């Protein structure tokens, strides 16, 4: 039976910059900064995931009860209306099914942070990476394994982890900003003799 699958590929502003960075093979940390900013902008524009702490609590309950029987947590029917919330429900189901033992050992705030971290990864793929990957592979910029490794490296960035913490404080996305990258201060006398590339 024909499927007529729908495959969204359009990119919003901040993600187009990420695409340019990937096409230009910019360093991973620079790309990670662009990704973090694009994620923050996406969460502001889409009203975040206001119920993220509640989803995390249900995730721990489902993991403890072994009641994950599908790609959404029990009781998540309303999530279908709001894409980031649905992505969070899906992430929570995957975590509850895949690491129930680990989730049983962490506190509620820690579980929320685990979910927030995973949510940002999944939102990056939903709004960005998976819309770019076919293009990047088609044009020969990357092979699939290389691109998979690079994206994992980008998402492992501290910047993304910091944004996850900020999201828990601003779950509705209002005023959410990407953390600025802190750089070690360099004394003026050292700056005079420093290599520009290193700076």
């Amino acid at each position, binding site marked *: 039976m024909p499927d007529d699958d729908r495959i*969204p590929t359009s990119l919003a502003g901040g993600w187009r910059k990420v695409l340019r960075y990937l096409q230009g093979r910019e360093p991973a940390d620079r790309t990670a900064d662009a990704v973090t900013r694009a994620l923050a902008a996406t969460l502001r524009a889409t009203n975040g995931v206001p119920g993220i702490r509640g989803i995390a609590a249900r995730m721990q309950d489902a993991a403890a009860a072994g009641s994950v029987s599908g790609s959404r947590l029990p009781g998540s029917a309303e999530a279908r209306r709001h894409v980031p919330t649905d992505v969070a429900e899906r992430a929570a189901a995957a975590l509850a099914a895949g690491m129930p033992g680990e989730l049983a050992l962490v506190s509620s705030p820690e579980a929320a942070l685990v979910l927030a971290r995973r949510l940002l990864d999944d939102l990056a793929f939903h709004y960005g990476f998976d819309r770019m990957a076919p293009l990047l592979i088609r044009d020969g910029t990357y092979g699939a394994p290389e691109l998979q490794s690079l994206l994992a490296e980008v998402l492992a960035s501290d910047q993304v982890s910091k944004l996850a913490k900020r999201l828990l404080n601003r779950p509705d996305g209002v005023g959410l900003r990407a953390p600025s990258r802190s750089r070690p201060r360099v004394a003026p006398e050292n700056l005079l003799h420093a290599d520009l590339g290193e700076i």
Partner: protein
Amino acid sequence: MGASRPPGRLTARFSVSGGHPQPLQLSCQALLDGHSVTHRLARELPYEAADLIEIAVSVHAIDRLVRRPSAQPARAGVSWARDLWAQVPVRQPWLWSAHASLLTELLTWLTDDSWSLEFCQLPGGAGPLDESQGFLFDTVPDDSVPVLFSGGLDSAAGLAAHLLASNAVAISVDTNNWMQHVQARVLSGLQAVSDHQCVPLRYRVSVGRSSVETSQRSRGLLFLAVGTATAWALRQDRLRVFENGIGAINLPYLRSQFGSQATRSMHPRTLRLMEQLAAAISSRPFHLEAPALNTTKAQLIETAPAVAEPALALTVSCDTGFSARVRDHAPCGACTSCLLRRQALHAAGKADLDKADAYRDSSPLRSVALQAMLWQAARIRACLDQADPWTALVSEFPEILDTAPLAPADVTSLYRSYIREWDSIQSSFPVSSQLGRQGKAAL
């Protein structure tokens, strides 16, 4: 013999997001014609069967008439889900009201929409499936197994293998003359497979040109409802569907896909929910047999006998192959359905079933669908290379959790076969050979 009645008019009502109810007239905005079925069976459909089909057609029409919200990526995070209310006249409203939650659960799963369904009494003789003429005699062999037949490659290959062992009733829905013609040609070709009989039973369903929504995710309900209802009319409590596991599970190619944007028409969960609904309505167990769920499309094709190959060559898989309503309209060659067909025929060593110039786009190198399929294959391969492939698959594709009650080991084995097929066709698959360096890297 059926009683003589005037032709009926079923008028349902529907509304969107709590808006003003609008009428939906099945004889006007949508067409349902099952007279050839009732005449072939020489009996009226049981009440619950006629109700099931008319509900499915009403829902399908509403699905086509209501546009989904815009799919702009950052539009306040709004998904493509709709809030829909419908009131459908049926012969047994108390029965359907009692089990409405099963139907809405199935519909929500198929369409992502929130459905609220109400049922009211259908006046006698007012249903499109109510018969106004008498019958002759039943010509269907008693031991025939009801089988859903779409005119696609899976259903034809599965039916061909089935006919080696027993008789079948091939139940189909067509929406236009071209689709009807293709289905008839394929079925005619399959008669050569064996001495077993294949009786075609055909319904015509079509929604008027006022339809504005093309996603039609309720289509799965329509096909399964028609099959289930016809099985009931045959006094059977089972229906066979032939759909390969990769296509049925239909994991999202990209994580940008939301919910049922990756179609779920024959998903294992769809089949399970439909079984539950059918059992509740009929007060008897109902079995949707899907013997190919653990096989890839290539493996399913391989089960068909060689004598069936001319008929398989006539099948249409393309997403737009039937919708164009143009006779001999060539398949696009670049949609996910065409690409999976091409991949499967090559992997099964039967690529010559499709003519060299069969597709409008013979080298879909720049097709997003192809690149999405290759990217998905790369992600699946990475999961299968892990020490615990199932856990890796769950993490990468949470939707795989929806395949229960299929066993994780069987699902993992299915995807291992699928990836092996991609690996085996690198040199022969025309698309990959044209991809050159990039394609090899992606594969």
